[in-house]
């Protein structure tokens, strides 16, 4: 090695621990107990007040939708003909419709079906879409062209028409609607994830991982996807809200969930003509649609902040 006594090396310094700023004994006293990544994320999430309120609300909503029917005296498909078109009362807190079916029971059943559909759509689109996008953005070239043209093709298919046609032939099962709407939402997620991956893959930490012998699969799933989490979560929450609305639109057209089964969308569209005369039939399911969409969005907000290790600010 050449002589190191040069102007560059003249500065009194040594790479020892003692000379490092921020490593003084005083600083050490503040060292907190080591927490795992998940513990830290959970703590950040718990501190996110709106997200926590939303989470509690959504859990209550789910309890209401999935457990509630077992404890309620009326059933959603009970068409007894008694107590028709009653306003909310102690016996029927949400009122009844013109066939005498208890509205609380139908809203519970409707919320149940809508939640199942919306969450399935979001889950399917996010999982498949992330993998689709990361593969496309990471490999580029021919693979990318094929996958992205396929995405373009799927985006041209009118989701409502296809879902309607399929649901029509399969007697309106909730999972058919979820599968079709979820499948057709996948390209949206794929395109967004691909965009993020395109910028991430040029970052040096990906090259560093490759230089350290990481396989393509490892790079995609351990390095790229975790760095896409923020966009993916935001997209997932939007998809839940969009799923609820998509199902509503289908049901409004008479192509979604069909009677005697019900969903929030079906209830709202069915009560269209009754807004003035029997508003309880319209507003109760409507409030539930809004509540689900809102709480999911706030939870997504909180998750995004909590899962980002760079986020130090804790919102209250």
């Amino acid at each position, binding site marked *: 090695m050449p002589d190191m006594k040069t102007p*560059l090396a003249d500065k009194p310094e040594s*790479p020892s*621990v003692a000379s490092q700023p921020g490593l003084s004994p005083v600083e050490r006293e503040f060292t907190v107990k080591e927490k795992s990544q998940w513990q830290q994320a959970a703590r950040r999430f718990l501190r996110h007040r709106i997200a926590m309120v939303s989470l509690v609300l959504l859990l209550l909503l789910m309890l209401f939708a999935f457990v509630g029917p077992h404890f309620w005296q009326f059933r959603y498909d009970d068409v007894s003909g008694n107590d028709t078109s009653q306003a909310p009362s102690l016996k029927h807190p949400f009122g009844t419709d013109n066939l005498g079916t208890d509205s609380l029971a139908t809203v519970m059943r409707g919320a149940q079906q809508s939640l199942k559909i919306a969450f399935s759509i979001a889950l399917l689109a996010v999982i498949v879409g992330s993998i689709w996008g990361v593969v496309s953005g990471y490999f580029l070239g021919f693979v990318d062209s094929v996958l992205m043209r396929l995405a373009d093709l799927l985006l041209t298919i009118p989701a409502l028409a296809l879902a309607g046609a399929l649901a029509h032939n399969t007697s309106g099962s909730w999972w058919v609607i979820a599968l079709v709407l979820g499948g057709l939402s996948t390209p949206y997620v794929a395109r967004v994830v691909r965009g993020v991956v395109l910028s991430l893959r040029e970052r040096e930490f990906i090259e560093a991982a490759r230089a350290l012998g990481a396989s393509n699969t490892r790079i995609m799933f351990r390095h790229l996807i975790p760095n896409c989490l923020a966009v993916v979560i935001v997209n997932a929450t939007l998809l839940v809200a969009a799923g609820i609305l998509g199902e509503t639109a289908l049901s409004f057209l008479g192509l979604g969930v069909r009677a005697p089964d019900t969903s929030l969308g079906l209830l709202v569209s069915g009560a269209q003509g009754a807004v003035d005369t029997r508003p309880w039939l319209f507003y109760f399911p409507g409030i539930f649609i809004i509540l689900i969409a809102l709480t999911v969005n706030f939870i997504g907000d909180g998750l995004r902040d909590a899962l980002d290790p760079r986020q130090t600010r804790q919102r209250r």
Partner: protein
Amino acid sequence: MTDVVTSPAGTKAAAALLEIDHLMVMFPVRAGTWGAVVGHVHAVDDVTLTLAEGETLGLVGESGCGKTTLARTLVRLTEPTGGTIRFRGEDLTAKRNKDLRSFRRYVQMVFQDPQASLNPRKRISQIVGAGIRLRGTSKGMKARREVEELLARVGLDPDHAQRYPHEFSGGQRQRIGIARALAADPKLVILDEPVSALDVSIQAQIVNLLDDLQDEFGLSYVFVAHDLSVVRHVSDRIAVMYLGKIVELSSSDELYAQPMHPYTASLLDAIPIPDPDRRRDRRRLVGELPSATNPPPGCRFHTRCPWATDLCTEVEPPLAEFANGHEVACHHPLNVGRTQLSEAIRSESSPRSSGAELTLSPAEAHRVEIDEAQGKDETP
């Protein structure tokens, strides 16, 4: 090529660790709807170099000259188009990705941007641990202790192993990058402008750290830089690149004392001297770096060279090797006497496309004229 390659500069008598033989890296340029290949960027064009065990080779040149591409190709982040790279006699260019993994632990890289080279979602222990995992000898608590030892060795607090990259300063991050490279226990570390993103006082710390680590771990370095003043302190030998070719190669002291290639001379002239009263004649480079897609014929530097002759536009100069191991690819080298010129031989590492015979003549005659012309211009 034989397995035993003598080090041209003769600085170290050790066996060659790395032999780069006529390495080519070309990137296709695509255009039109069907992506037809309309040309190639000659990023690295027929480069031959050797690196001895324990040696530091500086690699300098302006932006776009192919030095980073060369460095990346050495760790196979870029695929070579032609030529071979041998590490301890083993041909790496022939290896497929899977076979490469066993070699990767021996050749590691430190990246330019310490911010971008660390995954923001991973803890320092995970980042540095990746190198240890590659080596595959330590697991669990043992691996964890090794991470902490390494962090301490590069001047970081081992207690910070559970922190994230954003919680560190630029200099500290580069130390993490160095620790990651060292974790695999490599023999050769490619340093791709490791200090150019840092500020000057930190640069000195990192350079000294790298120097200490070299002695401690018995490392060889390829040190890429565009800053000649940094590379001087760490390098045993320096290779100067221009448009994908090596234009000059010599021991670092020799290069600074006696630059032979006009390009090297102007690079040296560009080093700022922190003395406002000192005036000197600078040979400024005029014009732009020509396109690497369509490099000029003959000597690639002739479009910007003040001493270019007709010969330069026609024949690509081979590397002339002088008695002391100094090599230069120029028809009219500077700072060299007639006797030295007559003793020069055509180097084995000359590009295949270069002239078969040495055609050296001094550039001194031109130089006087140029200096006079510049002198006239500069008087107010």
